[in-house]
């Protein structure tokens, strides 16, 4: 039963991804639901909710309105709130009930925009998909709407794509900025931690895009197509690996090519071969981009064991390889708890790296485990323990794993 989950919680939903992406804007976000979906986001997927004024509101959808397709009621409520709150833009989001009764959220958005004279985005989110698709959808809509056609005029400008508290600490934006600025770069648009709305307009001016999680990949491809901006798919993890990522940025700009995080790992391959095919391996379960970067970071730190990577999340599988076929193709795609169990049982993994809730799966018994809380998995249970990635403290985590052999 592939869709049965006994040990792991359901993960953050697509609408949470959208809300998370829009959080820092002066926006009015209306989730078209009875109230549970809004509560899922505010209570379980938004660590910033209790510290900042925000307007993610609920339409209080009811059966009669859903059955009779009373879109007008939603439009009226949102227009009234838009008039009161004067946001820069409005977003209306779907949830499971609108999805199954076929409410046209984009149509509703058009109606709101026309009546309120406020830009309105409609998102056909369903609650059936996971957060990274929502983050990606929000990023694309905003950039399609706001980005101005401009030449790549900022030779040391880097946009950061795929940065939300569903993958990272809310403080990660600052940590990343510090890292890139030390190397003479500066962050243009940081989507979506530390975003300055004005930077969205000039997002095409940056020399390169840094994709730090899978949710940033669709936008990176869009920007590549529209502005020709090369991108680097890598999440800086600690200072050692951070330096390596900065080199990738330089290479991408110099060559005008897109780069996925990788190193010349001949030494690692040889060491793994020496250890034999049955050597105990490491398994990293995380966001695909972050897991891939962690693998690179471990090898950079001297890890000799074979390392597999796996993820439950994929914003767009097609976007995860570049034109040369390089990318994240060796990342195991897990569509269910059962996939994870089968993966773990199918190979001699010495240790697993991932969200602590993975340890609830009995098949992990007897294996080493290294915790990397992933908010899209463990929610508020571990918000305070989410690691700062672009920070020297992450080097110690890497050393712990390498030293565990």
């Amino acid at each position, binding site marked *: *039963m592939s*869709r*049965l*989950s*006994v040990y792991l*919680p*359901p*993960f953050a*939903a*697509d609408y*949470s991804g959208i809300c998370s992406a829009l959080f820092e804007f002066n926006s009015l976000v*209306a989730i078209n*639901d*009875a*109230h*549970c*979906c*809004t*509560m*899922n986001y*505010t*209570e*379980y*997927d938004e660590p910033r*909710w*209790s*510290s900042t*004024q925000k*307007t993610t*509101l*609920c*339409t*209080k*959808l*009811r*059966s*009669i309105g*859903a*059955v009779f397709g009373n879109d007008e*009621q939603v439009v*009226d*409520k949102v227009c*009234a*709130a838009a008039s*009161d*709150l004067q946001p820069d833009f409005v977003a209306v989001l779907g*949830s*499971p*009930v609108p*999805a*199954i*009764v076929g409410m046209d959220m984009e149509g509703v958005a058009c109606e709101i925009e026309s009546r309120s004279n406020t830009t309105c985005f409609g998102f056909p989110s*369903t*609650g*059936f998909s996971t957060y990274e698709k929502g983050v990606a959808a929000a990023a694309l809509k905003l950039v399609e709407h706001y980005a101005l056609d401009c030449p790549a005029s900022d030779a040391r400008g880097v946009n950061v794509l795929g940065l939300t508290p569903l993958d990272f600490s809310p403080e990660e934006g600052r940590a990343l900025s510090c890292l890139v600025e030390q190397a003479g770069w500066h962050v243009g648009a940081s989507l979506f931690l530390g975003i300055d709305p004005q930077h969205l307009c000039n997002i095409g001016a940056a020399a390169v895009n840094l994709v730090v999680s899978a949710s940033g990949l669709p936008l990176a491809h869009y920007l590549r197509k529209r502005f020709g901006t090369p991108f680097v798919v890598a999440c800086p993890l600690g200072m050692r690996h951070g330096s390596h990522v900065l080199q990738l940025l330089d290479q991408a700009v110099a060559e005008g090519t897109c780069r996925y995080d990788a190193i010349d790992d001949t030494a690692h391959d040889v060491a793994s071969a020496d250890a034999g095919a049955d050597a105990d391996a490491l398994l990293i379960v995380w966001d695909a981009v972050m897991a891939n970067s962690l693998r690179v970071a471990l090898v950079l730190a001297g890890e000799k064991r074979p390392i597999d990577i796996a993820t439950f999340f994929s914003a767009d599988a097609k976007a995860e390889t570049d034109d040369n076929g390089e990318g994240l193709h060796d990342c195991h795609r897990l569509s269910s708890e059962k996939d994870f169990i089968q993966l773990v049982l199918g190979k001699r993994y010495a240790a697993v790296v991932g969200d602590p809730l993975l340890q*609830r799966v009995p098949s992990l018994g007897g294996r080493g485990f290294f915790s990397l809380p992933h908010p899209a998995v*463990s*929610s*508020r*249970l571990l918000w305070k323990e989410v690691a700062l990635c672009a920070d020297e403290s992450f080097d110690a985590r890497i050393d712990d794993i390498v030293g565990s052999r």
Partner: protein
Amino acid sequence: MQLELQNDSLCYLAPIRKRPRRSVVVPESHTLHICPAACGRRFAISAIEKGTSDHVSFLFLGEEDVVTGRYEQDICDAVDELLLVLDPAPKGIFLHFKCIDDFLGTDDASLVERLQCRHPKTKFAVCRLDPVALDGKIMPGMLLRKQQYAFLERSDSHDRGINLVGTRVDCKPDKDLVELLEANGFGPIRDNTECDTYEEYRLMEKSCLNIVTHWMSLVAARDMEQRLGIPFCVYYPTFDAREVVCFLQGIAQALDMPCPDLSAAVRAVEDDYDATGKALQGMPVALDSTVTMQVFSLARTMLEHGYNVTHVFAARVPDVEAESYAWLRERHPEVAVGDASNYRGLFDERGTQKCLAVGYEGARVLRADHYVEVDLNDDYHGFSGIHQLLAEMRDALGAKAAWESIHVPGRTQGGAR
């Protein structure tokens, strides 16, 4: 049919500030949540927080299920697998559906029958938590409470045990009620939220009377009367001493026992109302439904005692409150009635208000100088419940809320937009 208030505007969901510690309402049971992944997230995370995650699992519905209807077979397969994996096997399994099932039309009876045939040693029941149906005749929560007793069966004989039906988790039974029952040889008092084993829970079948401690469990009590042959009386939370007397007299009559003279207890409550009224010195009072879901009755009682009630915050007017609501609208149209979840409250730029808010929700909206923060609503039963609330109100007058330093999620610190 309940009336929803201010359903014409977007709403803001204030975080739940306090949570019950336990949530397994039937011991040794398991709940299979059948829903889109998104709908299950909060149940999973809160179950981990409460230490009850071994009692829940999830079957994720996909968009394709809406079209194919295959999920009913998937449910049967999932239950087969669950019963292989769970050790010890649960005595009962709740199939817990969410909002979208209202539109899928699952055949509950047929599903339970199929599962019962496949697993005769396990009991099955269907539950729904579908807030999208809040516009329906019966509130979703009432049906959910009814299903807490779904695994009970009709007993051939009854003892002198008394069931409390509708008690919140971790809520102690009212002492006036307990004393009355014990003085007349009735007991034990049985409450599913206090049971440690399935067998203990099943003993509720033996009880001779159900006492309904919350109107949300009235549907449950009626079902148990019809299905199990156990009659019921009500003992709702109330702030009117005369009503407490009526409730106790009703219970005494149902159990064919004498009811003691309660006039002294009534006088003590009236004295307490007077003393609290003097302490308030005419200060405006705001009430909200986190204190009691019968907040209009509370407002009426306080107004009848001369209190200056200025605001009542509630999302809806349930049937049980219709009379008090009508009375309030007719006799005191000056009292502002609204839903605290209305987004406008978040952006109201008024400063703090010199008033006493009973309940945090009203306090948050009004930025009340004084407020009573209630742990869990509807814990106020009997005479002691009234005394407790009045004492908390007097205590709150002695402390001024520092809203400048209180975070109100969704609102900037200090309150201004």
